[in-house]
């Protein structure tokens, strides 16, 4: 039975010049009750616009020109806005890509999950509690009261995303819209979220529209795939047909692009002789505050015994699953998070834990660029102010000198000079990310810390920003600390990769060596988690990677943190003593009890079995 029926939908968008031009040209789409339909296509194909139209919603700056959207027989577009809103509230739910932007930072997780119940008053209080607990378990989240009392910023990205899904599912929506729900997640977390999502969708029995640019992911969850390009449907069909026998040329290209390829060789020209810029020695850190009369508890650390150095002009990538401590490490180096053990040195001088206590020079030399283009610029400041502030702060530039330098910096990141007068809301995500990069480079830094700066961008835009980062590195002699969950990108971009797990280093070395055996069993798991365009890939990987991770897994603080999930764990050794560091080559080290010979013997897929 057709539940949602979209006919000849035309949506227009307003250009900066004020003209209305069609962005979606006559799309027909129907979704049966209980069916999961994927909308796939590249950036600008109109995926989100069509998905939102299913809710009878046009984003500000867009409008419906013609067409019909019938939901359970009800024509959505001609309804008065108030009834449309009521239908949306009662029957539909929307999960956005950026959980951080959608969760209310001032409310606890529990309060936010309860909110839809409170608004729609659909269940007695006891039933609500039970339903919430059930949903959290369904989504592999801890249902303990301590978890629901946390605030969004105290969760990892994957947890935030699953909380969003829990909120969306509370009212058992008959239509669920998921807009790139796992795009911002790392591979191992993505698997968990996908698995949880798949189960939850089956549970909910409602229809769902899944928007994504990632065909490999979509092939795991969708019943049917609709390929969009430039606001038109190119092809649609059941998932197996699209993946195995695409008819249209464009779909064939798309499928081809997702076939597994060997990782490209990185540039790899590090200056080994030079003195290290940044040295991190046995650093550890925790979010648990010191209390009087309580001894510091090492098992509460989210970073432990981190030792590495960063050489001038080097790009060091940090990979690891959500919650492994990548951002925490970035924050430690940026002075946003104090260490509770060890040292961080910059050019041989110890760095204070808090940015406020650091010297101007150290502050200038280390700059940070963060993940979310929506949140990393102050919405109330023009671009000029955003980029001008570090110029004023570090170099004491006067208001007269700033505009010229801002124009130079904008040109450097490939933006026209007149963007200086704009507000962030008048820029696209990729452009905002460029502004954040310009702001960091304004300080003429020696080190730029990049925390997932590509993960919120479309694939195409992300590639352009990455090219920009490459160019800037060549021109400005800067070293990067590049936090990323995208292993394919890392393989082509970084000089060295550091793999983190549970706040500890598993392995560090050049990508060409790290991504080939011998490598750490966790690295192997990471690699096997990168989605592959194959039906049932998810099912098979989930089955072969068992036992799956559970958040907040108990770890006694001794031994190898990975031992509960490791297929190679040696009883009595891996759970009893910290793993030794095995030097494979001069630059490549693996922290593991197994010998290099043992690690080489097992291929990258079998060692996680």
């Amino acid at each position, binding site marked *: 039975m057709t539940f949602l029926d979209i006919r000849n939908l035309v949506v227009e968008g307003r250009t900066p010049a004020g003209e209305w031009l069609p962005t979606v040209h006559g799309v027909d789409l129907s979704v049966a009750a209980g069916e999961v339909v994927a909308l796939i296509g590249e950036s600008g194909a109109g995926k989100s616009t069509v998905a*939102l139209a299913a*809710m*009878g*919603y*046009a*984003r*500000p700056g*867009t*409008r*419906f020109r013609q067409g019909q959207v019938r939901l359970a027989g009800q024509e959505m*577009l*001609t309804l008065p*806005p108030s009834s449309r*809103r009521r239908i*949306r*509230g009662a029957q*539909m*739910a*929307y*999960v*956005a890509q*950026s959980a951080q*932007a*959608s969760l*209310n*930072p*001032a409310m606890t997780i529990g309060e936010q999950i309860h*909110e*839809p119940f409170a*608004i729609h008053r659909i269940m007695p209080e006891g039933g609500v509690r039970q339903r919430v607990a059930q949903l959290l378990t369904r989504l592999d989240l801890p249902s303990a009261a301590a978890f629901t009392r946390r605030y969004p*910023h105290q969760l990892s990205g994957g947890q935030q995303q699953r909380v*969003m899904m829990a909120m*969306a599912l509370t009212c058992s929506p008959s239509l669920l819209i998921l807009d790139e729900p796992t795009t911002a997640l790392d591979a191992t977390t993505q698997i968990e979220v996908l698995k949880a999502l798949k189960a939850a969708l089956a549970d909910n029995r409602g229809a769902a529209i899944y928007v994504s640019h990632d065909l490999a992911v979509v092939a795991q969850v969708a019943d049917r795939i609709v390929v969009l390009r430039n606001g038109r449907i190119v092809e649609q069909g059941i998932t197996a047909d699209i993946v195995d026998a695409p008819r249209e040329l464009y779909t064939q290209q798309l499928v081809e692009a997702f076939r597994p390829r060997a990782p490209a060789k990185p540039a790899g020209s590090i200056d080994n002789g030079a003195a290290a810029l940044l040295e991190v020695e046995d650093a550890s850190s925790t979010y648990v*505050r010191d209390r009087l009369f309580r001894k510091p508890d090492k098992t509460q650390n989210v970073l432990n015994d981190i030792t590495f150095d960063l050489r001038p002009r080097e790009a060091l990538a940090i990979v690891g699953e959500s919650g492994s401590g990548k951002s925490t490490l970035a*924050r430690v180096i*940026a*002075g*946003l998070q104090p260490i509770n053990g060890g040292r961080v040195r910059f050019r041989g001088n110890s760095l204070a834990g808090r*940015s*406020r206590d650091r010297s101007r020079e150290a*502050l200038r030399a*280390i700059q*940070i660029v*963060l*993940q*979310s283009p*929506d*949140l*990393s*610029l*102050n*919405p*109330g*400041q023009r671009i000029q102010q955003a980029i001008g*502030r*570090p110029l004023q*702060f570090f170099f004491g530039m006067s208001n007269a000198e700033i505009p010229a330098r801002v124009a130079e910096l904008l040109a450097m990141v490939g933006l026209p000079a007149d963007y200086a007068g704009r507000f962030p809301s008048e820029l696209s995500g990729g452009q905002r990310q460029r502004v*954040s990069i310009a*702001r960091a480079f304004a*300080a003429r830094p020696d080190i730029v810390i990049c925390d997932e700066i590509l993960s919120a961008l479309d694939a195409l835009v992300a590639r352009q920003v990455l090219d920009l980062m490459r160019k800037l590195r060549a021109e400005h002699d800067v070293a990067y600390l590049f936090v990323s969950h995208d292993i394919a990108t890392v393989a082509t971009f970084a000089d060295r990769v550091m793999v983190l797990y549970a706040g500890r280093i598993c392995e560090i070395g050049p990508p060409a060596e790290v991504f080939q055996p011998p490598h750490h069993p966790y690295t192997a798991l990471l690699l096997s988690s990168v989605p592959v365009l194959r039906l049932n890939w998810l099912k098979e990987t989930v089955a072969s990677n068992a036992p799956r991770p559970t958040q907040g897994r108990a770890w006694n603080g001794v031994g190898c943190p990975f031992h509960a999930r490791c297929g190679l764990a040696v009883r009595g050794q891996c759970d009893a003593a910290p793993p030794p560091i095995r030097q494979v080559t001069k630059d490549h080290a693996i922290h593991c009890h197994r010998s290099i010979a043992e690690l080489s013997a097992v291929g990258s897929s079998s060692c996680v079995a």
Partner: protein
Amino acid sequence: MTMLAQTERGARSIRRLPDLTTLGILGLLLLAVNALLAVFGSAIAPHSAAELIGGGAFGPPSDAAPWGTDYLGRDLLSRVLHGAKYSIGIAAAATLLGFLAGISIGFAAAEIRGRFDVVMIWICDIFLSFPSILLALLVIAGFGTSLPVLILTIAFIQLPRVIRLSRAVAMGISTLEFVEVARARGESLPSILGREILPNSLRPLAVEFGLRMSFAVLFISSLSFLGLGIQPPEADWGGMVRENLSGIYYGALAAIIPALLIGLLVLGINLTVDWLSGEVPKAESQDLR
């Protein structure tokens, strides 16, 4: 849907004021008239507040007293004009004071966190658990009913709520990435609060300001009603309602007009607040034509 609305509101509307609505215009007009009354009311009043103009108590409207006279035979219009500065001025001054102090403390608590924050919230909660009228009675019993005491008392009563709200607002903003970047740059506390957090919290704070201000207007009225507000012969509008209450039996306007004016002032504030806090309905109405 709330999520969708939230993201978009978060991204675009912090800076811009919402489009004007009819009710919003009405609210702003009411506020403007009231502000003019508060500033120029005394100057344009034909008589002083205490002057007996003859014609007896609760006299009907006449040339000398266009709105009639009050329970002592004073010109009601003049008294209303004189009283405007109390009803509006005290409320505005007290709310402003409460906000300046409350925002400073609330923001600092959000940014510093830790022990300072815990203690602040604790103190606020203690004060919030007392009825405000009781707190006011205690202070006034101790310090008398001079104008400064009245203003400070009402400001003080507003304080805990304003601290809690501005703390919550600032907490939400202080974990956002642009604030983190400023912090990593080594910006000082005042710079972070002033440049990054305050400009982005003006909307919710303005809305709360309106609500608190209505509260203050009504609160002064209730204090005056108890005889603890402005002291005779001057009177704010709330006090005038009380002193002329018996006139209602004679059909006199003396109690009704000040009550009506209080109602209009509060209405003006609330309409303005609704306009400020309103969703942007244009996006919805635009989507089909």
